[in-house]
């Protein structure tokens, strides 16, 4: 008998790569390789279904059969790395960008990323939001250096295509017979909570500000980024708007203190 690690390497190669040489070690029916196919099929079918379930709008855009063929390639090339299958598939948009079957759709990767994140943020849960009045508790001398904690169901994307218009056709079931799509600079804020989602286009300044805050940059650093993107950006107005939108859930008031 081979060592357990060697047995499992051979079994992995059979399940993921289709190499059935492990069958000589197996018993089950007259020809165990036939039973090995049960595990091979389960791996491919269950994960392909999981990917398809996470990209419903992409399936609409690309066509279910075509997308499923790419998803099958994806599960063999990039198996999951963790048992929470709901988290599997984040790399699929990039995989789609390289797939021959979708090479005629230059926006497919951006569109699939939006599809993925709509599903992800819909499962998030908004926390109680801070308002403008809460911010007066933050010492003025530390305000510029604080990092805000934003709602968990947020995603910011800067794309070269109007993918929001395109996915709206899917979400509202209003696709025309033909849809002409032109490159366009689009900055999106995607927000979701408890099953509901919405997306909004932002100007260059607000997008830079909010997306920088979402990645953990300080208020000052985010404002500087925004001013670089839009010299007319007004940090005070933007911060007020952020609070009014209910996007801020926590802010440090002093070293060691957090308002939430």
């Amino acid at each position, binding site marked *: 008998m081979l060592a357990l690690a060697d047995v*499992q390497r051979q079994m992995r190669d059979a399940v993921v790569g289709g190499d059935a040489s492990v069958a000589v*070690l197996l*018993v089950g029916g007259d020809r165990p390789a036939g039973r090995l196919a049960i595990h091979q099929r389960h791996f491919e079918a269950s994960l392909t279904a999981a990917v398809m379930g996470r990209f419903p709008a992409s399936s609409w855009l690309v066509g279910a059969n075509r997308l499923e063929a790419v998803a099958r390639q994806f599960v063999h090339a990039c198996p999951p790395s963790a048992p929470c299958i709901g988290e599997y598939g984040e790399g699929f948009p990039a995989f789609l960008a390289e797939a021959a079957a979708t090479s005629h759709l230059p926006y497919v990767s951006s569109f699939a990323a939006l599809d993925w994140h709509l599903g992800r943020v819909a499962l*998030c849960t908004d926390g109680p939001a801070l308002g403008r009045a809460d911010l007066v508790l933050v010492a003025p001398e530390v305000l510029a250096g604080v990092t805000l904690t934003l709602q968990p169901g947020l995603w910011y994307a800067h794309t070269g295509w109007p993918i929001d218009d395109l996915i709206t056709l899917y979400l509202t079931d209003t696709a025309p017979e033909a849809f002409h799509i032109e490159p366009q600079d689009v900055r999106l804020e995607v927000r979701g909570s*408890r099953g509901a989602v919405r997306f909004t286009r932002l100007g260059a300044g607000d997008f830079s500000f909010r997306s920088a805050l979402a990645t953990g940059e300080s208020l000052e650093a985010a404002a500087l980024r925004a001013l670089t993107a839009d010299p007319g950006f007004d940090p005070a107005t933007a911060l007020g708007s952020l609070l009014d939108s209910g996007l801020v859930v926590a802010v440090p008031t002093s070293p060691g203190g957090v308002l939430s």
Partner: protein
Amino acid sequence: MSSIPVRRLSAGIGLRLPHIEEAVATSPAVGWLEIHPENFLSNPHAMELLDQLAERFPISVHTVGLSVGSACGIDRHHATRVRALIDRIDPVLVSGHLAWATHGAEYLNDLLPLPYTDETLRVVAAQLRQVQDALGRTFLLENPSNYLGFAGSTMTEVDFLTALVERTGCQLLCDVSNVHLSGHNMGYDPRAYLDGLPVDAVRELHLGGFTAEDDEATPGAQVLIDTHASRVADPAWELYAYAIRRFGHRPTLIEWDNDIPDLGTLVGEARMADAIAAGAREPERSHVGAR
């Protein structure tokens, strides 16, 4: 939440995401609910709803992702996440499978078979102890559904499970449908399998539907696939009655994971389990009464 001892609970159902909002709204008439933590760890909204259900129902956590049989070790990061969920909802039972699914950095999304050898026993026993330490709970280990075995195995599955109980203090989740299915596929007597399990270690029973397919390994024969996509079949119900006579009353779960029906169908299957369990115990009562 009910204060009925775990051992006396009436049958429960596997709680799947399509049913969770209805379960919160209607509190289905079942004894308990079992969840796969993997469905909740990446879904904060579902987790929020589960919190509400955990106040009303005993919950069992049945993990499919710890991979106690992997030669590369258990997924410690996943164990940490499962522990956090356990601490949050305080389940009455915690269980998983005698199988492996993780290979290096890959999770293969299946419950793959193990050779039953001394080496495997050492590996699984050590990792079961790690799992129990990581989760802070006694772990119930489920017998697998088998399509394949290993020519190099040196002990039976029953002996392997029994040795794990002795070495680690783990207990057993006996999936009765798996016993029927594996007995059919691998050519052993399901009742003899149940007879071999240590009675005191069996803490929970599972029942689920399976699908018969043409067996590519044996022309003209059929292989039973553990699809959890249909009602519990009659032979599994019959074996369940036998299991109740052998083990006594145990918390029993109806599993249905594919082609999921309406919640009422699952509740009906759970009631069927309760009825069969009650009927199976009748001869015992008559026998005791005649003494």
